[in-house]
Structure formats: C-alpha cells, structure tokens
C-alpha cells in the first residue's frame, strides 16, 4: 500500500502540474499578446496623429515629398513616446522620403515593410524583427489612393521587459498555486484511499482472527464480502476436519 500512496502523490503532482502549468502558460501568452497589442495600438495612435498632419499638408496642396514641417513633427512624436525608436515615411516604391534618422533616407525601406503594407491595403500592418519591430499605416491622397506608408519602429525590449515582468509574477503565482494544489490533492487522494485501507484492514483482521465466528463475521463485511466469508469458512472447515482426524487418531492411540 505504501507504493500505492507514493503513486497517488505522483498522480496528484502530475495532474496539478499539468493544469496549473497550462493555465500559467495561457496567462503568460495572453499577457504577452495583450501587452503587444496595447503597445502596437499606442504606436499606431501616434502614427494616425502624424497621418492627420500629413493629410492637412496635402489638403493645403503640398506635394507628398515636399512637406517641410513633417521632419519636425516626426521628431516631436518620436520624442513623445519612449518606446518609439524611429519614424519613417516612404513612397510606394519603397523610397524613404522622411525619417527621424537622417541616414535612413539614403536607403530604401525594407522589402518586408513594403510587402506588408501592400498586403494590408488600407489597414495597419506589423513586421516583427529581432531587436525592433515596425508597425505601419498607409497614407492616402485626397482621392483615396495610397501614395505611401508611415512606419513606426519600436523597441522589442520594452515589450519583452514588460512580458518578462508579468511572466515572473505569473510564474511565482503559478508555482505557489501548484505547490498548494499538489499538497492538497495529495492529502485528499490519500484520504480517499483511507477507505480502501480500512476495507483491506477488515479483510486482514478476518484472515488473522482466531475465533472462527468472528472471522466469518468480519469477512462478511467490507471489500470482498461473501467471497471472503466462504473462503474463511471453507478453510476453517478443512482445518476443523484435519484437527478432528488428528484428534481421533491420537484418541484411539491413547485408549
């Protein structure tokens, strides 16, 4: 029975580990997805603000590649949010027209950005990267035609830091819940097993009992009921017969 108890505890630990582990994992991924969504939406809100500014300039008749106030606006918006590492505006060919990092205007926008922008149409797009990711929106002219894209680069580190912190808290909470649940379920399982132990003890007492009547009565109760009772009674009957034969043999001898 000791090995059964050990096995019960292993079952409790494994099941609680699975359930709490899966729940913790779900919580962590949900948090990571949520924080990433919030950060992206926040960046896109900044992007829309820049887009409004571009639209205002276009409405005034300025050319898309010739908005003199745009570099200042981009710089101001980048400085307003510490998660944004840079803002770029590029046309449909991928030519970077404006950027908070001057040297980027010398190179074309990454092909993945252009592809993501074209795929998203008028919607927002995201291109994940190893160090920094980019979220973007399309820029349309007064006739509703897409003339370029606005991309906001943001540091993955901030999102990762936030996810790491939440992950740590979720891990600690999950570990505590797991330890408690594993202990509680182990005790609960052992308590349930107590009934089995009690029934086994009744059978043992029936097998141990010297008095045949008590043995038979004990056997009738509990785990194996009639089968054990018949077993005990048959053995008693056989023992009685053997003892009877021996007694008779010895009695006749002593006459």
């Amino acid at each position: 029975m000791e090995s059964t108890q050990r096995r019960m505890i292993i079952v409790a630990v494994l099941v609680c580990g699975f359930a709490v582990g899966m729940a913790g994992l779900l919580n962590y991924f949900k948090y990571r997805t949520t924080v990433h969504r919030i950060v992206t939406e926040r960046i896109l809100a900044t992007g829309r603000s820049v887009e409004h500014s571009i639209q205002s300039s276009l409405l005034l008749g300025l050319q898309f590649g010739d908005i003199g106030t745009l570099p200042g606006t981009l710089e101001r918006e980048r400085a307003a949010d510490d998660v944004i590492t840079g803002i770029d505006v590029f046309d449909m060919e991928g030519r970077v027209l404006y950027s908070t990092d001057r040297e980027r205007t010398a190179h074309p926008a990454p092909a993945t950005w252009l592809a993501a922008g074209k795929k998203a149409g008028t919607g927002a797009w995201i291109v994940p990267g190893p160090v920094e990711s980019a979220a973007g929106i399309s820029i349309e002219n007064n006739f509703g035609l897409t003339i370029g894209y606005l991309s906001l680069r943001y540091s993955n580190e901030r999102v990762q830091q936030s996810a790491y912190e939440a992950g740590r808290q979720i891990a600690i909470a999950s570990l505590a819940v797991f330890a408690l649940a594993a202990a509680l379920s182990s005790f609960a399982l052992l308590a349930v097993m107590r009934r089995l132990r009690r029934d086994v003890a009744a059978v043992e007492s029936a097998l141990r009992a010297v008095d045949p009547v008590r043995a038979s009565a004990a056997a009738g109760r509990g785990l194996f009921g009639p089968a054990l009772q018949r077993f005990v009674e048959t053995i008693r009957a056989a023992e009685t017969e053997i003892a009877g034969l021996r007694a008779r043999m010895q009695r006749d001898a002593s006459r």
Partner: protein
Amino acid sequence: MSYLRGIYLRLAGVLTLVVLAALAANAMLSHRAFERTLAPEMAKKIASVGASIRALVLTAVGNDIDFTALYGVDQRFDEVKSEAPEVSYIAITDEHGKILHQRFRPPAGATDYFRSPGVLAQLSAPDPGTASATATRVGDQYVVSLPIVTPERPLGTVHIGVDVRFVDDIVLDMLLDVVVVLVVSLFFTLELLHFMFGARLEASLRALVEAFERGARGDFATRQTNQAESVFDSLFQLMNGALGRVNAAYAALARDIENGKRVPAHERQPGLAHAGTGLQQLGQRFRFGDDGPDAASPERLLSKVRAPLFVFILAEELTRPFLPTYVKELLVPLPGLAPEVVVALPIALFMLIVALGQPFFGVYCGRAGYRRTMMIGAGIAAAGFAATALAASVLDLLLWRSLCALGYAMVFVAAQGYVLDHSTTAGRVRSFALFVGAIMAAAICGPSIGGILADNIGERSTFAIAALLALGSIAVIRLMPESRPGRAAAAETRLPRLREISSLMANPRFMAVTGLAAMPAKILLTGVCFYLVPLYMLSIGENQAMAGRILMAYAVIMVLIAPLTPPLATTRERMHWLVGGGLVVSGIGGLLMLAGGGIGWVLAAVMLIGLGQSLAISAQSALVADQCEEAIAQLGEGTVYGVYRLLERIGNALGPIIAGTLVLHFDYRPSFVVIGAAVALCGAIFMTVAHRNSQLALKPA
C-alpha cells in the same frame, strides 16, 4: 468491479475539485498581476490617443477658433472610440475644470475630479505638453488627463476614461481555454490513475477475488504472486499464510499417517486406518499443495497497452485543429492542382497510408512482436513530427506526414493486435473498450490543447511537442511485455486478396453497409471535422484554439453517447435504424450550416456529427456480420472485416479531397451543406435498402 469504479470516481472527483480550485486561484492571481502591469501600459496608450485629440484642438485654436466654441468634437470622440474600443469616456474641460464636451458614460465623481487641485495643477506645470501619462482611478474608470496648453496660456484638459473591467475582459477571454484545461485535466487524471494505479489495483483485486473464490471452492493450493505487481502485499501474505497453515496441517497429518504406517502392524495406532481414509476423502474434496508462481493472465497484461497508446495518439491528435492551416502556409503552386485540394493532400495521404499500410504492418508485427513494432512506429512518427515542424514547403511536408502515417499505422496495428491477443473471447468487447477508450481520451485532450498551443507558441513548436510526445510514448511502450501475435491476431491481420476485395465489392449486402454507411460516415468525419472545420474557423476570424475546442466537443459526444448505443442494437431492425438514423443525424449536422455560419452553428454541426457517428458506429460493425453471413462463410470473418475496414479507411482518405474540391467550387459553408446532404441521403437510401432486404428475407420461399 463496481468497487474499483467507486474508488476511481472518488479519486478523479477529488482531484478535479482541487484542480478547479487551483485554476480559479490561478485566474485570480493572474488577474491581479495583469491589473498591476497592464494598467500603466493602457494609460500610455490612452495618452497617445489623447495626444491626437490635443493636437487637433491646438491646431483648431491655432487657426483662431475659440476653444470654447470647437465643433465636430463629438465626431472625433466617436472616431477615437472606434480606434480604441476600450475607451469608455472622453471629455474636454476648460482651465477651471468645467466640462465643455463629453461623450459616453462619465465615471461617478468625474465633475469633482476634473476640478480637483491636482488635475488643475497640471495646467501650470513647467512643460505640460510632455507630462507623463498616469491613470487615476475615478469611480469605475481609470482616467488619464492631458493638459491642453498653448505657448500663450493654458486652455483646458482632455480626459479619457477606461473601464477598470478591461482586465476582467482579458481574463474572461481566457475562460474557455481554462475550461478546456479543466476538461483535459480530468481525462489526464483518469488516464494517469489508470496507468499509475488502476491497472495494478484492478489486477490485484481480481487476483484476490480469484484466490478467495478458489479457496471457497476448496482449492487451497498456494500460488506465489508477483509482489511488484500487487497492491495488497500484506493481504496476499496473510491469505497465503492461511492457505499455508491448512496445507501444513494437512501435510503434517499425511506425514504422521505415513510414519504410522511404517511401524509394525501390531504397533500401529488403532485410529490410523480411519485417519488415512479421512485424509483420502479430504484430499478428494479439497486441493492442497503449492502451484508454484502465479503466471500473469493475458488479460492482466492487457491494460499495459493503454498508456502508450494514449500518449502516442495524443501526439497525432494535437495537430488536428491546425494541420490544414499549417499546410496552407506552406503552399507552393502545383501544376494541375488547386490550392484547396493541395491543402487536403497531406491529410488524405496520411489516411491512405494508414488504410493501405495496416495489413502489411499486421504481417510485420507477426515477425517483430508488438512492443518492437510499436517502438519502431513511435520512433518513425516522432521523426515525422520533428521534420514536419521544420518543413519548408508542402512538398516535403507530404513526405514527413507520410512518415507520421507509417508510424501511426504501425502503432495502431500493433496495439490492436496486442489487445486482440491478450483478451479472451468473452472479454473481447471489454478489451476493445480499453483500446477505444485510450483513443477517445486522446481525441478529447489532443485537439483542444493542440489548438491552444498552436495559437500561443506557434504551429511548428506544437509539432515539436508532438514529436516529444511520440518519443515519450516509446518510454511507456518499453514497459509493455515483449510478445508476438498469437493465432487470433495473425488471422485478423492477413492481407486481403484482390479477388476477395472484388468479390465483396460486388456483394450488394456488403456494399450496402460499407458503401452507403461506413464510407460516407468517414468521408463526413475527415472532410468536415479534419478539413473544413479548422479552415472555416480561420476564415471567419476565429483562432485554432476555437477549432480545437469544437473538435473536442465531437470527441466528448462520442465518449458520452457511443457506450450507450450497443445495448440498443439488439435486433437487425434496430441496427438498421441506428446506422441509417445515425447517418441522417450526422448529415443534418452538415446541413445545419444552411441556418448560419457562426461558431454556434459550427459547434452544433460537429456535435450532431458526433451524435450521428456514436449512434451508428457499433451497430455498423455488427451489421457486417449480420448482413454478410454467406460472404463470411465463404471468405472468413477476418477477410470480410479486413476489406470492410480497408474501404472504411479509404473513405477517411477521400473525405478531405472531396471537401477540398467542394471548397474550390462552392466555398466553405456550401461544402458543409453538400457533404451533409449527401451523407443524409446515403442514410435514407441505406434505410430503404435495409428495409427492402428485411422484407425479402421475411417472404416465404
């Protein structure tokens, strides 16, 4: 074994309650952690949204529009709400905190808060434009306040509120996944209990009952039990002690009588002859002595196949909700094949290999043994899963999925053969219930968990987990005893000859069950559940976890309903009704998509398919024997059932191809409907044909 079932239910119930409490506690603690860490992030987002409103206000004021006479503000607020749905209140106040514009539901105490010195003080901060966003709890909202200040003077403040329950929504969003974890935990508990404890306990209880019954019949011969296999060591010792005592008394008496006979006749005890006669009679009525070690009965070894089978099948089931989506991501143009059909190819090829490979692997299993075949199969499948995780395109994916199919077929055939070989004729139904139980438990746990994992860690990582599970199953397979198929299993796995297949395919009675019932049922299962459901869910913007949950519902219905139907299939008519009715019910499942295309309708469709299949599955198999008596007499039961299974599994392979072709021409919802209608029609025709055959059989010759 109702005593054992009682213990099982109590153990599983207690564990489920604790797990439920643990999941609730975990959700509560996570809620707090979310609130603590997400509120500042949300505040920053809201500040960005607020900054755009502020910029517009400043532009308007810069264009000489009076701050107190701004127009179009409510429209802008509505736009903000559509961009950030979690925003529950927006207001603009003047420099004294008086509300100029507001939209949506104001939090309790908003007016006082806007006029509070802390908020008004922001207007005179050195650089109010770059003030960091902090969320303040006002009533039931977090409010972020951003001052609107021109270089000349402060104008006022824009306030944006977010309902504090936004975290509740995030946690509630996970509720379905947590319920899935709970259900899977329950089945996991039952499987673990069985593996760690139940099988031994059941074997020990059975051994004890047998020993007691033997003793009650007068068979006192002791048998050594394997201590490692027994839960009741002390009980066995005591029982053997009691048996040993009576054996010893008998042996001592026999010895004394024998010794007594050795002395000269005149010195012999007078009662010796009487005792000798009594001893002889005792020996006839009871059985004494030692039978040596107790050989494990084949049925006792049966349960050892359940855990490896569960773990292995779980690996394959994990991939169900996202495999078609994964294939779609790896699509490359194949000449002459539409993408919709190419997506179906890996599933169809898998099913075809399993269908065609089973007879061959049955023969291989005869040479290699069950354990070895299962280990090799699991190893091949693990390699297949790992390679699938790294697949570059649909072309190499086809090869890797073929490996998975080979492994699956090997494990399936070997496990089935093992069950067949280790069960008595009387206990075969119970033995197969153990086999099917392991598969169904995996079918419940696998898709739901697979969907959640694919959504969160990605499809490739989930395939890697499937590979680990398949590898892990090898460790459990190693615990099985090494044995080779006996005659019964070997007969079942003989390759059906072409002549036999064609003869059966020309048999109208056989084809009525196979072509009108078994094959359509499988086409519906794989076409709808394995192909259409995962792809359709994604097409309506749902995730793979939802597809997994819906597939789990199918398995849950099967587990709940399928055991109830065999007792109903008592007569031929009832079997006809169950098979035909089951097909019609599952066909209606597909037709249900005419009513709507939401998740609820998909769930209802899949549940009806599960219900229909549960009604039909056992009667369908029994009908083969009932309808094809002549064919069985001529070709043998093994051959008839072998061809039946082969054609049924070919139905499995056809399902995704048919569904893919239908999607190509009609889109998803009509494909559900067309397959459903065709299967319902098959069910109706089957019932008509079966009824006509019964009428013909009743007519006097």
